[in-house]
């Protein structure tokens, strides 16, 4: 959350970090500037387009030196940066909702080709209807394809995570793209006070992008993305699977280094725990719904109710063992899905289905209740959160609850 300006004492000792009033989108644009991104493609769609506007401003003002290309569609937008990355450029891209879906062919081949693209997804409801408000289905749509997926809940975290994402994605052991999800409106469009790190700290943290043996260049005679058949495909897929298996370790290294260099501590990179130490029941969720959830939890704690919250950051790679170990401490778990998955097991959302799967091998099984909430930008309110907690408290007491419940729906 917002930090206050450094004290006078600190000011005298070290160069003061700049604090700016910026949105989550602008924070990511600033990270691109600090990371000295080489090629950025753009195609407007709300709410992601705020980042393309900020980048355009930085480029026009001479504050950032990069190739800025407005493509004629998202499909081309993502194709262009994919190719730029293949020839050694550090790239950035982004989209929202059905714009992201329009790029789907490009999104599919990007991880397959081991392209470390960083994309910002301004989470937006999928058409139809054409709502601009937040829903997580857009980013989640690529969850099987090899994209690393991370959700942030404030502008400071957006900036920091963008820098971390470059470090992780461009690590030769990984070379998988990463999409940073920012809730439409709540994060993309609200301005908060963010500390901007200095360029030398970023230089110390983020090495240059080296495509090495995979670089498309006349001095490196290779060809990529050939036609293949059943003799080759499984081994190729296995390689990409191995890269994703290595990702958690690289993520941990990156966060540790981040803390060392920037002085900001995120603890467990994969998920953040709030008031879970002695909790009986917890909610699990991603993104900015953390705000009303934390506020509601403080209220309920004051009433003597032991409830906590686990905010998942990294959805891919999914921290199954770690999360299962944490969640199996509780009597009941409520998973808040800001997404839908028609026809899924028990009519649950995507996150609920993944959490149930993660818990399956655990020795202790909490009751898992799924909640669908906040779709299309509808606020998840403090009363909504209280309703969800009432349900999981009832579950913890052995009272049967529906497997999936819609919260805040007019019914």
């Amino acid at each position, binding site marked *: 959350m917002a930090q206050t300006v450094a004290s006078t004492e600190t000011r005298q000792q070290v160069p003061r970090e700049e604090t700016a009033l910026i949105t989550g989108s602008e924070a990511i644009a600033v990270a691109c500037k600090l990371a000295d991104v080489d090629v950025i493609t753009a195609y407007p769609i709300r709410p992601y387009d705020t980042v393309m506007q900020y980048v355009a401003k930085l480029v026009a003002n001479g504050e950032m030196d990069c190739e800025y290309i407005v493509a004629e569609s998202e499909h081309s937008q993502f194709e262009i940066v994919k190719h730029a990355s293949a020839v050694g450029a550090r790239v950035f891209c982004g989209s929202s909702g059905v714009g992201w879906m329009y790029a789907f062919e490009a999104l599919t081949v990007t991880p397959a080709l081991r392209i470390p693209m960083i994309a910002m997804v301004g989470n937006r409801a999928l058409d139809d209807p054409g709502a601009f408000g937040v829903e997580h289905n857009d980013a989640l749509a690529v969850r099987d394809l090899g994209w690393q997926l991370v959700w942030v809940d404030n502008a400071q975290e957006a900036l920091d995570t963008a820098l971390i994402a470059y470090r992780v994605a461009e690590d030769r052991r990984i070379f998988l793209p990463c999409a940073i999800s920012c809730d439409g409106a709540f994060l993309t469009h609200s301005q*908060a006070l963010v500390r901007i790190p200095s360029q030398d700290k970023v230089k110390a943290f983020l090495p240059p992008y080296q495509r090495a043996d995979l670089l498309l260049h006349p001095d490196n005679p290779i060809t990529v993305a050939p036609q293949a058949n059943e003799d080759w495909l499984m081994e190729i897929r296995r390689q990409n699977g191995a890269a994703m298996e290595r990702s958690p370790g690289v993520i941990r290294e990156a966060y540790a280094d981040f803390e060392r260099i920037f002085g900001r501590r995120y603890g467990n990179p994969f998920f953040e725990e709030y008031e879970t130490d002695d909790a009986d029941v917890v909610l699990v969720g991603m993104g900015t719904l953390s705000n009303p959830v934390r506020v509601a939890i403080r209220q309920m704690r004051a009433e003597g109710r032991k409830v906590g919250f686990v905010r998942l950051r990294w959805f891919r790679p999914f921290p199954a063992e770690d999360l299962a170990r944490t969640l199996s401490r509780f009597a009941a778990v409520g998973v808040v899905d800001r997404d839908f998955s028609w026809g899924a097991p028990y009519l649950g959302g995507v996150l609920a289905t993944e959490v149930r799967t993660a818990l399956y091998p655990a020795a202790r099984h909490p009751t898992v209740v799924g909640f669908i909430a906040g779709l299309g930008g509808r606020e998840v309110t403090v009363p909504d959160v209280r309703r969800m907690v009432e349900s999981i408290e009832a579950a913890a007491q052995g009272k049967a609850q529906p497997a999936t419940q819609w919260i805040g729906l007019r019914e």
Partner: protein
Amino acid sequence: MGRLYAVEIVYRGIFQKTLAKNLSRAIVLAAHREGKPGISFGRYGDSPERNGIPAKSFAIVATDDVTLEEGMAQYEPKEVDVTIAVDDTLCKGVESWAWYGLQPVNRLLKPGGTLIVTSHQEPAALIEMMHRKEHPYQLAIVKATPSFSGLWVYKDDHTDVRILGALAKVLPDLFSLISLQEVIAEEWKDQLKAASALRAYERISTVEVLPTQGNPETPYRFDFPKWHEMREGIAIPSIPRGAAVVDAQTGETGGYRPERNPTFKKFTTRTMRPVVDFAKCIKCTLCWLQCPDSCFDVMPDGMYDASMEACCGCGVCEAVCPEKDCITMVNETDFRDNASQWEAWRKDPEGYARWVAEKIAVRPERSHGFRFRGQYEQQVPGELAAARDA
């Protein structure tokens, strides 16, 4: 828990988008000078903005981070300490994309909260336009012509800093004049702007508005259907066909009045309305043809009556009318209802002619936005001079 402050800025879409953003940002930055964290945002549901449609920006500030988080749990505030209306025609109420029905401009104000309006009107005139509120509140007027800009070009007539100066006076706990001056120096580096803020701070005064004062009408509102009460397939029924009009004076039936959207009326988008002198009309049909929203009803005698329930004040009718002084756009604050002009003319043609003459006698510049290079350089010196004398 600490203190939470919420300020909303009600503005005309596109024309005042930058003004609203400057205001909400400056509020957060000024409060931040005093160690208070804050968030500034435009109401997302209001986008994409259309010319003139009422929209809102918010600045949420707190004494500490925890209190700010408590405040932000309710993302769009349900109550505010101060409402800033940067166009006085907004006092009639606002129908936005993000809010169904007609919302009184003072709706979110806490008991004792302050409504700051930019206007040249007197308090009594503004109070007359505003809906009654269940508890008292304060009204402060920053004497200024409402400031309209283009989307990409900002008219820097000091409206922003004058409002901020007034805000520092009416809510000193939010930020002090000194903090404001520091932000002005850093953001705009303009001594003249700092002086304008100081002048507004010194001159602003408030009057109390009681629950008995104001427009007694109940603003229209709608209830939302339940999910199973809605037609499937995201299909919306069309507005039915219109019908002929009955002339109340003669009983004659004729003409055509289209049916209009019953749940989104749009008339609070207008800042000016067409005053029609039917005696001059030659029935060329151009106003009726060219109105982008089909606001003109065809009357039984073949005259064209702009429906004030639908008109959003674009001014195309005035522009295309070939007859001098037949259609004239007049500031919306000059009117108190949406009554039919044609009916008024039919009932009392001479009285109506006097009314028209009075309404169109003074014709200040009523266009919005940026129309030519150098426009603002022409307008701003006059406005700054007026502000100095205000």
